[in-house]
């Protein structure tokens, strides 16, 4: 089992020796049980870092933010930035490197194995009637601090579906790694939730999706939290295209509005389906989009569907190797479609 102190020592050591300019990790939030992202820059701050079942966040988002900031300020920091990464997060980092967003030597990965478990789901926890101020790992259990004392639950009862179904709960790409590699653990079949959903007939599924998308308030939390949604200009939101002194009146005047601002079914569906298509072969199932959705839209079903298509049709596994080409930048010699040859 991972000793939190090891993670703190690693971060402190990196900062003390000036090997990295900052460490992106987790700390306790001010508002309750959950962890929150933090960027620490001094060795003293290392003691703030935490590691527990509420470390949901895919911190690679902040690597993207960091690159954008450096590009904006035209700063070349020289030293890498360190990041605490779970198996899924490390795969996201690999995808970003496959897409040349940054180079391997610019990032120092402090890998964290999820070992026997993964992160919890707040709604599942609430359904168990637990209001906790703290959560921690303990073997196959999660342990909670509550007003009524310590409570213990088997992790798999409230674990995120994506963690139950995770095939590689271990950050293969890392500079240093903490915890055992438990790849091969079988908590649930991959794509099990998707499979259950697909048992419904098409008409029923369409009615289901209409109801889900009708609820969307277009807060764009799903896009904002996604490390793969790094485009400066988002096709679904022509209102926020980047304008600078060089942008001509012509360009601004002729901007196509693909999707209107109104949160209505047609626009919401176009938004979500376009995003799902753009994540095909890139989404590594961190499922942050679904977690941050304030109105519970089950976005994982969409992203999982695309992931399974890429895997079954092309044998493609996103984030498996830095050297591998991106899905849309590769082809198979034996592709059944003729257009490719």
């Amino acid at each position, binding site marked *: 089992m991972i000793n939190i102190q090891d993670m703190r020592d690693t971060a402190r050591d990196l900062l003390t020796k000036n090997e990295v300019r900052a460490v992106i990790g987790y700390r306790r939030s001010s508002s309750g049980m959950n962890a929150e992202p933090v960027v620490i820059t001094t060795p003293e701050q290392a003691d703030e870092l935490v590691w527990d079942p509420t470390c949901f966040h895919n911190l690679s988002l902040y690597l993207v933010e960091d690159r954008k900031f450096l590009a904006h300020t035209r700063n070349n920091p020289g030293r890498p930035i360190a990041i605490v990464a779970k198996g899924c997060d490390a795969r996201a980092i690999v995808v970003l490197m496959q897409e040349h967003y940054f180079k391997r030597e610019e990032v120092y990965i402090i890998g964290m194995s999820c070992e026997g478990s993964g992160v919890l789901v707040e709604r599942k926890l609430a359904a168990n009637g637990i209001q906790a101020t703290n959560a921690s790992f303990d073997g196959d259990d999660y342990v909670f601090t509550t007003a009524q004392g310590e409570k213990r639950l088997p992790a798999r009862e409230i674990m995120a579906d994506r963690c139950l179904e995770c095939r590689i709960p271990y950050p293969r790409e890392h500079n240093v790694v903490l915890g055992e590699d438990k790849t091969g653990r079988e908590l649930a079949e991959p794509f099990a939730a998707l499979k259950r959903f697909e048992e419904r007939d098409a008409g029923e599924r369409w009615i289901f999706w209409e109801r889900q998308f009708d609820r969307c308030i277009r807060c764009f939390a799903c896009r904002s939290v996604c490390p793969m949604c790094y485009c400066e200009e988002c096709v679904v939101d022509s209102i926020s295209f980047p304008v600078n002194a060089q942008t*001509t*009146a*012509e360009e*601004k*005047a*002729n*901007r196509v509005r693909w999707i209107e601002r109104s949160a209505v079914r047609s626009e919401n569906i176009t938004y979500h389906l376009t995003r799902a298509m753009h994540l095909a072969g890139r989404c590594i199932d961190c499922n942050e989009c679904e977690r941050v959705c304030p109105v519970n839209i089950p976005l994982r079903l969409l992203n999982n569907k695309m992931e399974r298509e890429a895997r079954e049709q092309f044998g493609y596994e996103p984030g498996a190797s830095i050297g591998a080409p991106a899905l849309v930048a590769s082809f198979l010699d034996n592709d059944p479609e003729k257009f490719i040859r």
Partner: protein
Amino acid sequence: MPDNIYLPELARVVHIKEEVAGERSIKTFRIEPVNGEAFAHECGQCAMLSIFGRGEMMISIASSPLIKEYKQFSIMRVGRVSAAFHELQVGDVIGIRGPYGNSFPVDDWRGKNLFFIGGGCGLAPIWPVITTAVAQRDYFKKITVFYGGRSPRDIMYRAELEKLRGDVDLQLSVDKTEDGWNGYCGFVPANVMDKAPSADNAIAITCGPPIMIKFVIQNLHQLGFADEHIFTTIENKMKCGLGKCGRCNVGKDYVCTKGPVYSWAQLKGLPEEY
């Protein structure tokens, strides 16, 4: 105010003049109401103009309130709606609602010397003040207009400006001179400094690019102008014009209702978020 504050009145374009050509072209539009009378406005106020299907934009009214039959707007082609304006023909019908915002306290300035300092398309918002002051010439003492553009071809209202000579001391300048130009060459703030107008019993009104305004104000301070006697206008993105949509919020002010006209004394108290 009409019952429905968001419903524009229809207005017809009766005259179009190309002020400045090129990439950042400016056209001046005169519009008249399709039905009834146009709303009354004061110097410095703005109106929300619509092209249906493209959207709305807030533009300062560039004609004097003394002119009742039409309103004039000078519009640079910079975005979605302004580009559509540049496609308009005489006779086309657009939407207009307003007037919005506060105004220059012109009546308080009677008996004073007025210094107008404008740059580029910043002449439009102060043009109603200049033309109103000239129309009421006896109320004011010396009127001086400093105005500059990038080149002689970027000078707006050229013919109208020339007609003011005699009533006002007109000081034109260009950043880059060309053959036939006999005005000043150099930046507007430097021109102001060269002529060094006295701050005595005087009001300075400036509008133009932010960088110009910054230096103009520094220079006016050097010349002894008090913050209360320097006026300018600010702009922010606006959607409603009514202090509700929140876009133009700067500190406790909504620029669309509390602005766009500010004395430098007032503006100093606002966060620099414009």
